[in-house]
């Protein structure tokens, strides 16, 4: 029974209709469950949507937990390790506010349910893998940006103390200038300030463009790698998933016995 559940909840193969239906169903439920967050007024129907969707998402969580040994392949330890995996934490965080254990301020955690779609989306998996692969480079860019924001805010705060209420205001201005957003609520009034603002905007274009380029290049690499692997393993032709291969292995093992 557990293996049947595992087959159902895991990403389905191209020819697995039941699995595909389950995948779409969970994605749909995840989406419907966040619809109440889009309204200011709380309609009674939202309570039912919340209850039903939370139970379906929780059932999916339980299914994944009780079949964790197939996925994580660490024997009985898989059941201990599963709750501390990334998707399991996201799932439980998205459910907790509904249980009434967390205050109203945490209700926004419900939006994490949309991450359920990550389980099933190949493209989103590529993007997350691409980000993970380039995390060191992205950290460097982030540190560079944060360093520049801090420095320019410090200079501006020194030259134009009257423009900002406090240092946080200067940081806010530096961030909006670097990202070229420029709301216009805070602006430099001295020539030095305007010069820094110009440099920030120019530097910002480069800093913002860098991560986009890095992630895109890594994303393309991921797709190429997947394609090569598929060709090498012959998956491109038969369209078999990991589950199908496990089943085949089991059948072969039974046949040998």
């Amino acid at each position, binding site marked *: 029974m557990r*293996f049947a559940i595992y087959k159902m909840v895991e990403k389905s193969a191209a020819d697995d209709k039941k699995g595909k239906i389950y995948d779409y169903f969970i994605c749909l439920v995840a989406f419907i469950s966040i619809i109440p967050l889009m309204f200011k007024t709380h309609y009674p129907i939202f309570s039912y949507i919340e209850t039903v969707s939370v*139970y379906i998402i929780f*059932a999916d969580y*339980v299914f994944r937990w009780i079949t964790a040994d197939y996925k994580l392949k660490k024997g009985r330890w898989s059941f201990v390790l599963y709750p501390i995996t990334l998707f399991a934490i996201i799932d439980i965080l998205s459910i907790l506010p509904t*249980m009434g254990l967390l205050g109203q301020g945490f209700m926004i955690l419900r939006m994490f349910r949309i991450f359920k779609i990550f389980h099933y989306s190949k493209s989103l998996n590529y993007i997350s893998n691409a980000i993970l692969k380039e995390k060191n480079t992205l950290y460097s860019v982030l540190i560079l940006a944060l360093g520049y924001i801090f420095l320019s805010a410090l200079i501006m705060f020194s030259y134009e103390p009257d423009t900002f209420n406090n240092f946080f205001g200067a940081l806010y201005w530096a961030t909006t200038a670097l990202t070229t957003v420029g709301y216009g609520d805070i602006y430099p009034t001295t020539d030095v300030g305007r010069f820094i603002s110009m440099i920030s905007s120019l530097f910002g274009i480069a800093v913002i463009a860098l991560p986009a380029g890095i992630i895109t290049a890594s994303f393309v690499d991921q797709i190429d790698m997947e394609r090569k692997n598929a060709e090498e393993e012959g998956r491109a032709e038969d369209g078999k998933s990991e589950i199908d291969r496990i089943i085949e292995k089991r059948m072969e093992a039974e046949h040998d016995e």
Partner: protein
Amino acid sequence: MNKKSRYIFIMILGIIMNQGLSLFSDKFPVWLDTSGTALAALALEPAAGLLVGLVDNFLIAIFKNGSGSLLYYCVSASVAIIVGVIMRDREGRIRWQRIFAVIPLIIIVSTILSSVLTLWYSGGISTNKFELEYYYYFISMGLHPYISCALGIGVIKVYDTIVTAVIVALVYMLIPKTMKNVILKEEQKEGL
């Protein structure tokens, strides 16, 4: 009867037992809302018990308490796991003598879980009138409210677990042999 039909039959029976027998909790100092869960875990496997408990909990949430009751699922889940794992040996055969270890274990685990949840949700004031009676009894003895809550819940769990064990054993013996997962290991070899 094939395996699929057997699973469906036992699991539906489990849900009906949970829902039906829990109606007695207003009149007697027992919950009986995990009897079907235990039956499914015993007759089939722990995963079946977990599913029965989940459906039962879902029905309670829809018709009674709302999604707040979801956390109480951990109580029925613990029953399913304890019964399903401990009552059967490695060969998949039921060892009835293990019931004397399973009953105290269920009492302890479910008392701890229920007490923590009751304290968290309502500061220790249970919704069950029998638990509440014991709670006030222990309070009158000068015990701390938290300890009184745990003891009040614990006393009812003792009654509940013993009665549940008797009911599950009787129902298990009454259902035909073809409905039970008699030789679990062979079926596992068949590829579930």
